């Protein structure tokens, strides 16, 4: 069994005066201090960054960041897997410890992307779909249109996901957005891709998050260890015809995680999922089995996914309100769940939380996602 024994995170927002390396080192150092372990005990580093190569020409940043913390000579991997870069790094570290290859690894996700001229994220400029106008909001807007068509989901229900997210974000000092927003406010924002308004699309941000993983042997000495029961990484099936509102890749990855952890949706006390868009959270809630297919909009509108509801989703504010520094997001989700399971989440604490689930997805190919991750943690 593998445990999370240390967490560290920077506020998510605009860090114009800080480099990728500074952001990364801040989170990594905090995680190491929180673990009570020394840099000499860290046997490997997995460092996720998605955009540094494209934006700044920075590659293999992991070795430099970790060297500043005194983590040298050991294996260091730099990980890029779109929005699942951070959770893929976690998957690598979890596998190494589960396999008995090492007793301790550090996982860092770091992104600096608030720079002038950054356009909408797409899945690669040379891809045919991209050249035919497929930007990421369009991909989810088409899912939203189809969801409304098949299930009668309303724009107000989708907007309620954002209103809930803002209410959560206002309770998280690390979140980019700290202000409440009503359903009416969300719907009154400018349209980005019909039917999604700007408020229904997650904002970019700079930020970093890190966790220290340890084997049972080492975790026994850590008083606040949280078990990482399973970490699953899958890629798309790219089936044609792809059902855009019953997401096979999403539900397949969730099912694998539940099976491997020996739990079901009814055992989960809180979820951090990849709410890059309002409709995305609705689709993920359905794929994770929190409600039947087609019911995700009503689930959010009824308050069941709010703090204090039946199954709180994205109490951190999620991507929509905490902000989405691409490669940091997947690790930030783990940091949030660990805080919740330790009972250290302050104003957004889910009372008595014992088991949490984190879900991420990234990339776009043939109407499917390229990458999907689910991790389950418990105390």
């Amino acid at each position, binding site marked *: 069994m593998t445990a999370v024994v240390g967490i560290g995170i920077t506020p998510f927002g605009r860090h114009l005066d800080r480099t990728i390396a500074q952001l990364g080192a801040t989170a990594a150092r905090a995680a190491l201090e929180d673990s009570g372990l020394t840099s000499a005990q860290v046997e490997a580093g997995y460092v996720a960054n998605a955009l540094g190569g494209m934006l700044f020409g920075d590659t293999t940043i992991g070795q430099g960041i970790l060297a500043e913390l005194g983590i040298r000579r050991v294996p260091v991997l730099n990980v890029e897997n779109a929005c699942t870069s951070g959770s893929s790094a976690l998957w690598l570290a979890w596998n190494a410890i589960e396999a008995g290859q090492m007793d301790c690894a550090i996982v860092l996700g770091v992104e600096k992307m608030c720079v002038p001229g950054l356009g*909408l994220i797409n899945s690669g400029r040379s891809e045919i779909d991209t*050249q*035919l*106008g497929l*930007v990421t909001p369009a991909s989810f807007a088409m899912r939203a*249109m189809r969801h409304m068509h098949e299930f009668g989901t309303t724009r107000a229900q989708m907007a309620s996901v954002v209103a809930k997210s803002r209410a959560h974000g206002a309770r998280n000092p690390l979140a980019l957005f700290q202000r409440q927003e009503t359903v009416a406010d969300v719907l009154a924002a400018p349209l980005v*891709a019909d039917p999604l308004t700007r408020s229904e699309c997650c904002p970019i941000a700079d930020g970093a998050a890190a966790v220290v993983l340890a084997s049972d042997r080492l975790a026994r000495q850590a008083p606040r260890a949280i078990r990482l029961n399973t970490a699953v990484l899958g890629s798309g099936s790219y089936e044609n015809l792809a059902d855009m509102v019953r997401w096979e890749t999403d539900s397949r990855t969730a099912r694998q995680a539940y099976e491997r952890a020996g739990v079901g949706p009814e055992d989960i006390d809180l979820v951090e999922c990849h709410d890059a868009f309002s409709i995305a959270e609705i689709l993920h809630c359905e794929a994770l089995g929190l409600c039947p297919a087609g019911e995700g909009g009503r689930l959010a509108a009824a308050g069941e996914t709010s703090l204090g509801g039946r199954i709180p989703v994205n109490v951190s504010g999620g991507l929509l309100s905490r902000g989405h520094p691409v490669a940091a997001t997947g690790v930030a989700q783990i940091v949030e769940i660990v805080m919740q399971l330790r009972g250290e989440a302050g104003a957004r604490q889910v009372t008595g939380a014992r088991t949490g689930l984190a879900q991420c997805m990234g990339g776009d190919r043939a*109407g499917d996602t390229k990458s999907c991750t689910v991790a389950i943690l418990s105390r």
Partner: protein
Amino acid sequence: MTGDTAHNVPAFAPDVFVEGAGGSALVGGHCRQCGSTWFPTAERCPEDGTRLEPIEIGRTGRLYSYTVVRTKAPFGLPEPYGVGYVDLDDVPLRVFMLLDPAQVDRLAIGAPVRLASATLGVGLNGEPCRRPYFTLLTDTQ
């Protein structure tokens, strides 16, 4: 969006669509081994590795879903512009494609569409180029 010709204007990418007297068609890849059809085409069938042969597909279909993108358009596309997934009539494929920019206010799921093409936007190097798009059948009859 009609009336302009393909003279000297390159396609935005090779092996995606053809333009002829009979109208525009998409270029898929057909596998003789398993009978499957792929779009966009590839060198070999992902199922069995057989070399794919080009086949003209997708002159007509129905809109599975769509959106109108209202942010700054990439590749010099019109603002706003429509995109959608279209279920093709002739082969069991759901393909992503541009939609007629003149029809962004009339789109509906289930609507029958026909493939067209025009000089639309620019290519990777900023040069004007031809792109395929689906247009509502009801508007062209």
